[in-house]
């Protein structure tokens, strides 16, 4: 059984790291995984996105057209990925800055105020983990505890001081993910 997750946003919103964290956690959980980034020359702005695949069997293609789930950190990403997520899949939207609701009804959409929550936690840079936490609450691909454990050993040294906030971000996200509030009716 294979799960594909796309995470997409502006450069700097941490989409790539969130995807890597998933892959690291999958490895720790003894699963097969791939992480596939989109990349551009250093100085190019625009969107950065990546695909993480987690599976109990060896993985063929590291990219798919129709992922099982997507986390969209900004509007362009919503425009691009909403149409692509598999029917019945999960779509997590950073509602703090994305001002439109998803249109599709054949998938589970979560409107999570990522930036606001991050603000509350006093650390703008953890938006990505808030949304990831929310996703994990709805997508039975990895245990939250697993992801938290993994984060503890993969977080880069110069970010270590932020570990606590990062863990909180995941938890807050997970909480939001389970609350009904986030689901658009």
């Amino acid at each position, binding site marked *: 059984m294979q799960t594909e997750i796309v995470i997409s946003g502006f450069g700097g919103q941490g989409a790539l790291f969130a995807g890597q964290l998933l892959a690291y956690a999958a490895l720790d959980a003894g699963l097969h995984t791939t992480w596939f980034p989109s990349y551009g020359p*250093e100085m190019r702005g625009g969107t950065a996105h990546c695909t993480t695949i987690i599976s109990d069997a060896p993985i063929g293609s590291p990219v798919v057209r129709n992922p099982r789930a997507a986390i969209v950190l900004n509007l362009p990403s919503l425009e691009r990925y909403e149409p692509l997520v598999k029917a019945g899949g999960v779509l997590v939207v950073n509602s703090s800055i994305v001002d439109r609701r998803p249109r599709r009804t054949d998938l589970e959409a979560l409107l999570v105020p990522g930036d606001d929550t991050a603000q509350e936690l006093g650390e703008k840079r953890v938006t990505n983990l808030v949304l990831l936490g929310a996703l994990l609450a709805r997508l039975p691909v990895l245990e939250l505890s697993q992801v938290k454990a993994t984060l503890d050993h993969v977080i880069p040294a110069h970010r270590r001081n932020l570990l606590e906030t990062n863990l909180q971000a995941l938890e807050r996200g997970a909480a939001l993910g389970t609350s009904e509030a986030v689901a658009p009716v």
Partner: protein
Amino acid sequence: MSVQAPNPTLAPVVRYPEALAPTPTHYCPGCTHGIAHRLVAEVIDELGVREETIGVASVGCSVFAYNYFSVDFAQAPHGRAPALATGIKRTSPDKVVFTYQGDGDLASIGAAEILHAAARGENITVIFINNAIYGMTGGQMAPTTLAGQRTTSSPLGRDVKLQGHPLKMSEILAQVDGAAYVARRSLHDVVNIRRAKKAIRKAFEVQQQGLGFAMVELLSSCPTNWGMEAQEALDFIRDDMVPFYPLGEFKVPGNGAPGGAKGDGQHPKGGR
């Protein structure tokens, strides 16, 4: 862009240059590539040569320069812009031809092409952006990287014994007989930016007068790969680069000898 004066008693004194395409660039915030672009465009406008100018973009962050100037442009392989410019100028002698090259492009892979374009006295203008780094590929060491400077390919800081000494291209090229005008200027503050523009203008006039090879080296910033804020980066130019890369005119038409090879002594802080 047409400008609507906010108040009839006021007249626009600085407006968007015609030779600059009315489009945002992809450069990082505070990157002085943008200043260099504007200065070149202003000079092209002042000389009224926009319609007969052909630019040659190189490989580096400025690879898309052709999108930002409203003049004809070719895009050259890494380091070969002077060769393309030679091919263009020799077959279109009535056109104004300039290259826009980074330090990796001009001083590393393109060292032979720039040296020989100078030796041939190719009648072209070279804008040389020295930001002491490989910007586009993410901050590797450039031939102009300062001793001790950390880059992704000199993680412990450039060890000149192992990784070589930074190259002073202006001093080297000023030595070459075919070079008519060679100057180094800096973009770290208003005074120096204005001096830089004067040098760029001279470098284009030298070409118009058919005097030979002209180059302006511009000390430029790379906030992104230096890991600095925009202003911090300008201070780094002033405090670290200028002392090693003296500003000045190293060769001016007429003076065969590399006059002022030690720079014009202008104190870097003078600009502030």
